[in-house]
């Protein structure tokens, strides 16, 4: 299963590289390769991670492997024993900025290749994703963070935001292993943001992100939903 998340400096970010864990401790990964990329797709490091471990401290991993100050895309290529894992459980992660008044978040790391069987066998488009928002008004700043895990080709991503009956379109092109954060305006012509949709020619890494207006602390870091499989 190929999945990815994003690490930002200052966060306590713990990744469960294996979620289920039975008494016999058999449910381990066979192998795990971790790769770190900067926003322009440059490979920063491929730190060794013990696949027999439970939790990876992403902050320590990035700090020890790179001197990057900006956001880093962290890619997990996990292999499982088919006999033990008939399906691929998502990695989950815990995310919190120390001393922040914001509560910690817990989320499923976005799987780009692999995952649950209906994703693996998807024969239709699985790269059209949707997320809805409360109308508010709320102070948070919203965005989507997108990454391309393709090896050779760039991907053109369309981002549609909806404000009442109005639709605003943005496009971003992501070369291989690049990532970008695309801001979503909270309001357009006095109408609040109610929905975002993302379309691409193939599956990309995608998270919807909400930050507190005063501190910038993450309040939302979650996957979108694929409704066309």
């Amino acid at each position, binding site marked *: 299963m190929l999945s990815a998340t994003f690490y930002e400096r200052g966060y306590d970010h713990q990744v469960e590289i294996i979620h289920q864990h039975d008494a016999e401790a058999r449910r381990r990964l066979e192998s795990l390769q971790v790769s770190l990329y900067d926003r322009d797709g440059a490979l920063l490091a491929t730190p060794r991670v013990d696949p027999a471990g439970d939790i990876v401290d992403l902050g320590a991993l990035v700090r020890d492997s790179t001197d990057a100050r900006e956001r880093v895309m962290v890619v997990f290529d996990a292999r499982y024993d088919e006999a033990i894992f008939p399906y691929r459980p998502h990695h989950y992660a815990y995310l919190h900025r120390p001393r922040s008044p914001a*509560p*910690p978040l817990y989320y499923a790391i976005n799987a780009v290749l692999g995952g649950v069987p209906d994703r693996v066998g998807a024969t239709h488009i699985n790269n059209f994703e949707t997320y809805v928002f409360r109308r508010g008004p709320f102070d948070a700043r919203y965005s989507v963070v997108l990454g391309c895990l393709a090896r050779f080709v760039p991907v053109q991503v369309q981002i549609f935001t909806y404000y009442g009956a109005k639709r605003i379109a943005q496009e971003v092109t992501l070369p291989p292993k690049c990532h970008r954060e695309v801001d979503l305006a909270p309001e357009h012509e006095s109408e609040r943001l109610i929905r975002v949709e993302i379309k691409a020619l193939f599956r990309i890494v995608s998270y919807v992100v909400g930050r507190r207006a005063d501190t910038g602390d993450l309040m939302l870091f*979650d996957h979108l*939903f694929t409704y066309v499989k």
Partner: protein
Amino acid sequence: MKRPPTYYLPWITRPGLECALLLSNVEARFKPGFSVGPFSVSIVQYDARGAVAHRYQVTLQDGTDAVDLPLRPAVGGCGFATVSGERLRSDLYVTLSDGHDYTVTHGRGEFIEGYPGVSRLLLSVAGMLAALGGYTLPIFRRNQYVYLGRDSRSHVLLLNLSNVTNRIRILAGRGRHRIGSTLLRLPPMGSHLLDVTSLLPEPADGTAVWRLELQGNAWFNLYLVGAGFQDLAGPLSLMHVK
């Protein structure tokens, strides 16, 4: 025993913290022949004792409509709400807001276990006997990591998704080393917010990760409840698990 498909979401209310559902039927847009609204949606909110606290009725005008539904406080301050509606297939959200921002997670399309009378009686007697020794009938097991730091932690909201009393035994530890355990008794359709600090020590610094093994005599699920330095008196997040 019957397992009718049920979509449910957890809820928590606290002073200064609004809990609201965000309801939509976005997926209907992609179902030819079923994409035209309106869509009627029924919500039943169960309190921590498993009693029906409130009922709500919402109409979604079309496949792009999204409705905020603030939930009213109820006994115990936590529980779950079931959502039903014809051809309602989309994932739905529950939000916690301090008025400035909100945190959000989605619900689960699973089932509620309905045991017939004889099974309920047998489970009740066997459960009481096991509880005398601090045990439960470990028919369902789950494992979940929890996080505990000096200014953040993940509590656990347990949901009894059955019509029998569910005795849930929780063992806390790391690797094969166990440091705490407790046995909870959740009434049918009831819920319990487990404070992880009642089981686990706060670390001197950093964030400690612990594993919970949960055993129950009937179907149950859980959500993590993220709390910052104000703990349960401050902003919270609800977080789905695998």
